[in-house]
């Protein structure tokens, strides 16, 4: 069987600098891969390439064996690649419910319907409310997204991803900026998605306890390159990973 997502020699250069360099790896259903790496390692850029926000300079991306390198972000979203953003990226003036319903609607393909029946409408709203209950946002459903505190905006980011009902979930530091009360809700949700063995999950996360609790596999990016990839114990024991995580310069150019 084909991997759900596969990248081959994936590279993107900004100016002369390769933010993602020659990354080849494959992700399979039922597997949660945590992507780690220091700031600026290229994790978000890798996501941008997979979900189509950026076009690679070189290399290919395959979904279930099909080359999707040239397809648009919307086509990729429709094909089941779902992605939450590290920097909150919502529809600020629309209500929390409308934000979520938009994602449900896109999934159901009812966007273009102009004169749709009210019944179909409330069905979409009900589905959106389910995702809001799951992310504990149901009580603020009618507030504009811009009015939410930061932690709730992060949750809404996740609610949108859930509402897309994708096969491939990409979370980019989903709990960053959340309080200690809020983060477990999101981690439990990811745990729940993980139970469904047909889903592929990619998670960028810094917190080591989270990584240990959730990872089936760890991929380490460093200066855009995939420097380690394997099961958590092996990867965490690798000298290069220890060096990166202890902040010891590798090749003498490591910043921050």
């Amino acid at each position, binding site marked *: 069987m084909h991997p759900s997502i596969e990248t081959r020699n994936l590279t993107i250069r900004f100016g002369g600098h390769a933010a993602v360099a020659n990354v080849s790896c494959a992700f399979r259903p039922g597997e949660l891969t945590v992507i780690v790496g220091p700031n600026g390692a290229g994790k978000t850029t890798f996501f941008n390439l997979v979900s189509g926000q950026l076009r690679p300079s070189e290399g290919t991306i395959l979904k279930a064996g099909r080359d999707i390198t040239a397809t648009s972000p919307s086509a990729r*979203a429709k094909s089941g690649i779902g992605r939450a953003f590290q920097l909150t990226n919502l529809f600020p003036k629309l209500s929390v419910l409308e934000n979520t319903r938009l994602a449900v609607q*896109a999934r159901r393909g009812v966007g*273009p319907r102009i004169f749709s029946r009210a019944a179909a409408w409330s069905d979409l709203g009900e589905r959106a409310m389910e995702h809001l209950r799951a992310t504990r946002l149901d009580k603020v459903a009618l507030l504009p997204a811009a009015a939410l505190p930061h932690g709730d905006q992060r949750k809404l980011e996740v609610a949108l991803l859930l509402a897309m009902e994708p096969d491939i979930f990409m979370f980019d530091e989903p709990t960053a900026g959340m309080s200690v009360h809020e983060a477990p809700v999101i981690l439990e949700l990811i745990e729940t998605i993980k139970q469904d063995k047909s889903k592929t999950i990619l998670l960028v996360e810094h917190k080591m306890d989270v990584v240990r609790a959730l990872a089936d596999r760890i991929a380490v990016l460093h200066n855009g390159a995939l420097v380690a990839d394997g099961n958590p114990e092996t990867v965490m024991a690798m000298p290069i990973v220890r060096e990166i995580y202890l902040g010891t310069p590798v090749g003498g150019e490591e910043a921050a």
Partner: protein
Amino acid sequence: MTDTSATSHRAAKRFNTGRIAVYAIVAAIGLALMFAPFLFPDVRSQQVAARICIFIALVASYDLLIGYTGIVSFAHTMFFGLGAYGTAIALKQMGPGWDAVFLGGSAGVAAAIILAIAIGLLSLRVKAIFFAMVTLAAASVMMVLASQLSDFTGGEDGLVYSAPKLFSPATKLMTGDDGKVLAVFDVRMNGKIAAYYFVFLSSLALFFAMLRIVASPLGTVLEAIRENELRAEAIGYRVVAYRTAIFVIAAVIAALAGILWATWLKYTGPDTTLSFAIMIDILLMVVIGGMGTMHGAVIGVTVMSLAQFYLKDLMEAGAIATADIPVLPHLLEPDRWLLWLGVLFILLVYFFPAGIAGTLMKKAGE
């Protein structure tokens, strides 16, 4: 439990006072327009009322673009003009008849659709400012064409023609026992009444259709594109396709409004349809009423039209009434009406930064 709290929130949102005020104003305007021939029977008022009806449809369709989707276009009068000129040319060439209105109108709408698709697909994927420039260029070309092809369009003078017979003042809609045209509440039931209600009901239908569009799933997608186009793309919406679609829908509605305008005026020329002065009127009406509200179109068009038509009269009356007071009569000199119109705009924009409807609804929403 959570559901009931959500429902009560929604109820609170729906029944806040600002919203009620906006709906009340819009309903009052709607009723005034519905009974305009009886409330304001003079010729000039009829003219103002018909213009308000048609411009509500025209301005609301522009609001679909600028207010809901965030598309800035300067080609709206071009689409309005296509509908009007199509109808006018057909009425001129084929004589007054519904077949001419239908054929000419259809040709105008078809031209609007083709142009809108072409402009949309070619340039809606580029930067907003570039798109605005393309629409400006297209509108200018259309104005040049209208004045150059004078055999067809009448050039700068425009076209004068007759409307279908039903709308002729000589047509008797109802006759009394004596065979003369019947008067209801002192208003003669002639073709002019038929023309007004044709305009009123058609504009009303267009407005309700647009209310449905903005309340549909499509309406929310348009707002999403306005708010955050990259995210809309990221959750699966083809932004260019949606932008083009709404651009075409707005163009069709503008062209339909143009058909009404041409049929009502029995004259079509650059000054009544294509000119940039009208484009600026549309922009001001949308801004004064409130962008992205639909109801704002009703309020904006009414306020602007009343000011444009009656401010001069009002000032004349004011100047006469204040004749004995030193400075006032000079200030109220009717020739200075444009100055006062400008002052009115500035005050409106200052006190209603989100437009009249937009600001009222927001205030009470908080």
